[in-house]
């Protein structure tokens, strides 16, 4: 696809996000509520304990911040956009356009991300200003690794969201699919609880699935919990998944588009 088309799609999605800013801000407040309740829960859990599952309270606070950040990067709106296109039949118009469907959706997602992520960052800056002793990466190189991990987190999440969206070709509603995706992602990515807390059998499942790339990988990098070689390995696994999911999305699209039915006209 031409870079110009890509940029213009991004731009349009950005404007769209601005147009629906009230609902995005309310969505952000919603994330904030869930993160606040998790924060209180962890405060109670760490009450009277120095460490739980090898994590200190300061590390846990930073962890929650990263969770909030990765959640705010790709919102409910970006997620339902793909499903809605398929369910209301407007995907037919996309089929007529000389654009790759997957790349076009990626462009839109990145466009809304620029706005949503910006607002999310602002939120985080405000929180960090009030909260003391948040642990941050200790060197510019660690920051760089974290930035790579965060970009990878977005790539993996897009891959999963795109696949879930395409499943709507086989159903007549999107809510069930999206709810299931959110529930699975939240638990297995480490979005609810760090993977270090998991019992062995669950930790093993999480380590062979792509979801860990969304929260666990960027959080580990942010907290400097591993050495450089281990960190690079984590990023390689994450990006490996991102590429695999991209190709899986391509394959599923090609298969799904053959059985498309559009009603009315």
């Amino acid at each position, binding site marked *: 696809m031409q870079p110009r088309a890509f940029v213009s799609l991004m731009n349009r999605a950005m404007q769209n996000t601005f147009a629906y800013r009230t*609902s995005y801000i309310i969505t952000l407040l*919603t994330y904030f509520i*869930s993160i606040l*309740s998790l924060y209180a829960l962890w405060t109670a859990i760490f*009450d009277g304990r120095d460490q739980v599952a090898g994590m200190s309270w300061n590390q846990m606070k930073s962890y929650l911040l990263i969770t909030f950040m990765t959640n705010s990067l790709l919102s409910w709106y970006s997620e339902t956009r793909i499903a809605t296109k398929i369910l209301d039949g407007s995907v037919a118009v996309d089929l007529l356009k000389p654009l790759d469907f997957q790349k076009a959706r990626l462009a839109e997602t990145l466009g809304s991300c620029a706005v949503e992520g910006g607002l999310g960052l602002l939120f985080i800056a405000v929180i960090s200003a009030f909260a003391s002793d948040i642990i941050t990466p200790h060197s510019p190189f660690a920051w760089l690794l974290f930035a790579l991990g965060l970009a990878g987190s977005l790539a993996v999440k897009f891959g999963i969201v795109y696949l879930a969206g395409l499943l709507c070709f086989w159903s007549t509603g999107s809510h069930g699919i999206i*709810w299931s995706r959110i529930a699975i992602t939240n638990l297995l990515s480490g979005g609810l609880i760090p993977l270090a807390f998991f019992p062995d059998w669950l930790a093993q499942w999480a380590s062979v699935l792509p979801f860990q790339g969304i929260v666990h990988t960027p959080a580990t990098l942010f907290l400097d919990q591993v050495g450089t070689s281990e960190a690079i390995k984590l990023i390689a696994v994450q990006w490996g998944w991102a590429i695999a999911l991209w190709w899986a999305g391509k394959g599923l699209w090609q298969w799904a588009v053959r059985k498309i039915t559009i009603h009315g006209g």
Partner: protein
Amino acid sequence: MRRSLYLYYRLISQQLRAILEYQTDFVILMGSAVLTQLLGIVFLRVIFQRIPDINGWGFWEVAFMYAMIYVTEGIGSLLFEGTWRLGGLINRGELDKLLLRPVSPILQVLSSAVGVNGIGNIVTGSIIIWQALAHMDVSWTWDKIGITVIVLLSAVVIRIAINLASNCVNFWLHGTGNAFPQMVLNVGDFAKYPITIYPSFVRVLVAGFVPFAFISYYPAAAITGANDLAWVWALCPVVAVISACAAIGIFRIGLRSYESAGN
């Protein structure tokens, strides 16, 4: 009253019949509700494997609060999903149709949709509540059983009232979709855990303004008698009646500022 109940039954069974046409969706929605709740319980289990209690509350007490939020949400979806359609009805001006019929508009709104995911929530949540009640440290007497029934019923009424009241925001705020009621729904996330873990402003919010605490925490406290709160069972039905009256009141006030839409 009997006529209302009969009409409600007829309307809701029509909705149910309509939704059963789409079997794949039916299965996916129910499955997603079950999955969400079970993974939530896995989350609690993982935490309680590391620590024995949270502010004195054990695994089963917290599981009870957790499941109460889901069961009441499920009943709200299955039987009163219509509250969530109120925004759409107002924005498209379809409330006109309802107002012309000689039946209470609230009744028609409540029965205007069915959310089958509610079945998944009700079944899974009930099993967890059942298990929790069996494992909690409670000596079961007839009094206790009576109290349990009262607090559970009150919780359902409170939940429906919150849903109806928060969706009424669409009478005044147009075009925000379901974002606001969705946010109120998420305030319920606070009540999945014992409210004693929160700073005081959150406690005031969920005990006073949006009474989610009366769906989960206070019923748990009333049944176990923890924190000397055994007496609180008597407060639950009072809160339920107040919430219901408030929700109906807000709906009526909102209806007065309804102007229809379009041409």
